[in-house]
């Protein structure tokens, strides 16, 4: 194992709504934003405010990190966890967690969320996607008709 640069034992994460989470350093390893903050710090504890992440979301991310950081869990158990983790989320949860992953600079969790969202919109209609992301069309009806005609086969 690589030598730990910092002597920190407990990290306190403070979410946007003020809720507080105390975690061990190995849990935040994937959160590069947090990691860059604690590297080189020479103290036992540290508090880090995360004004862009809500408590509920942070709780879920920590749950995910705990499962994936665990060395006792098998690969199959982790996959099973991932499956259930996504299943209980609404689409807005996924979008918020993707944003949180981006803010915390968590590469593999970001990919995981992007995949979950991609699976929801794959093979769906334009209308479904607009509703999903709450996007309004800014095409004129003529422009949209033209575009649809250009790739007509893709609508079948």
């Amino acid at each position: 194992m690589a030598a730990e640069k910092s002597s920190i034992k407990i990290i306190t994460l403070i979410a946007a709504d003020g809720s507080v989470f105390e975690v061990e350093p190995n849990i935040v390893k994937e959160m590069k934003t947090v990691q860059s903050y604690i590297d080189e710090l020479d103290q036992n504890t540290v508090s880090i405010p995360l004004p862009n992440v809500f408590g509920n979301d942070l709780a879920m991310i920590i749950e995910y990190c705990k499962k994936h950081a665990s060395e006792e869990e098998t690969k199959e158990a982790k996959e099973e966890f991932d499956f259930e983790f996504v299943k209980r989320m609404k689409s807005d949860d996924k979008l918020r967690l993707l944003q949180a992953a981006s803010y915390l600079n968590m590469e593999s969790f970001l990919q995981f969320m992007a995949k979950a969202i991609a699976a929801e919109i794959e093979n769906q209609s334009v209308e479904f996607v607009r509703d999903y992301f709450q996007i309004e069309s800014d095409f004129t009806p003529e422009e949209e008709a033209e575009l649809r005609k250009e790739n007509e086969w893709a609508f079948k």
Partner: protein
Amino acid sequence: MAPRSRVILPEDLIAEILSLISVKSLLRFRCVNNSWNSLILNPTFVKLHLKRSSQQNDLFTLTTHHIKYGFDESPDSSDDDLEHGYSVVPYSISRLIENPSFTHFEDPYYHLNDKGCSTMVGTCNGLILLADDSDAGRSHEYLFSLWNPATRTTSPKFGYFRDSRRERFAFSFGCDNSSNTYKVVASRYIRDQLSTEVRVLNLGENVWRNIESYPVVPVDLKSKDNYVYLNDTLNWLAIHNYFEYKIKNANNVKGISVKQFVIVSLDLGTETYNQYLLPRGINDKVLPAGPTISLLGGFLCFSYSYKKTDFVVWQMKKFGIEESWTQFLKISYQNLSPAYDYDDTWNYRLKLFPCLLSEDGYTLILRSSEVEAILYNWRDNRVKRINIIPSRTLIDDDTIDIVDWSLAKGYVESLVPTF
């Protein structure tokens, strides 16, 4: 009902999501709004999508050859009534492994004749290079077209040339990704000069340039799967003193030692050649039958028959590093025999070519001739014969349809434009 909370994603996160979506859905999603439309057409996004798509490694070009005999009884009928053409359909390897016997009904969209081309040269970054080779009196005429089956776009014809030598050109296709230049390489033997001729065309320039000929002559320029495209290079299996052997042994390359074989690699960026030695672990003085190179699971592979008992596959773990050759598989012919009906001596004559490898790396697709292929799972030693029955129409119209496994190549879906 309470309104949904509004989560507005920045464009880089939208791009992350869309990079995981199929091309067909993306073409539809261009209609979402203006910013999605320009994102999906953006070259940086096209590259990101290609990168993600390339990690999947599940598609290949399922190529079928259709031959129609004209049983026309009119007095004008002749041998020219023989019609033939190819179809190329991207197909999933995992689906083939799940179900290796099926009737393959083809969408007419995938017929190459309708695209004005007779055959497929190769594939790179989701683009398929098509070629048309026809006789014009005593000379041959060549023409090309670029096709992206995922976006359903085909380029105008390009690269026309006419040539009157007896030896025909063989073509290969690749990309120098550092300069984003796609290149077609044409090469052939020139027997009376005991040499080769190599020409290159950069896509978009439409000019054929002669480059240095091969430093060592490729063995099988005429076969359809004579080259491997990998890491911005084109690779051929070659033999020192090729012509000497061809002439002395009347086309029989038996009796050539391992040391005479090398892999000749053309760097598409610099247009210069490198040469790589074969694995040192092969001790035999005489190279056994059927040496061939292929691309399996992203690695350049070298395979051959060992003492008529085994089929051996080596992987070059780090491309260009001769020390990285690693024995990947050694398959006993006995294990493969359930897939064939031949008698006891069949394995002496059986020449195997690895075509494709499943995503998990356990199942190999091997062809024994152009039209016959099997699945071999090396982990649990299972063999299955592949039996795809191509069908152009539901009506029996005297057409013979066969799968051409020598043109089964790894394919990735991409948004890369055809020009």
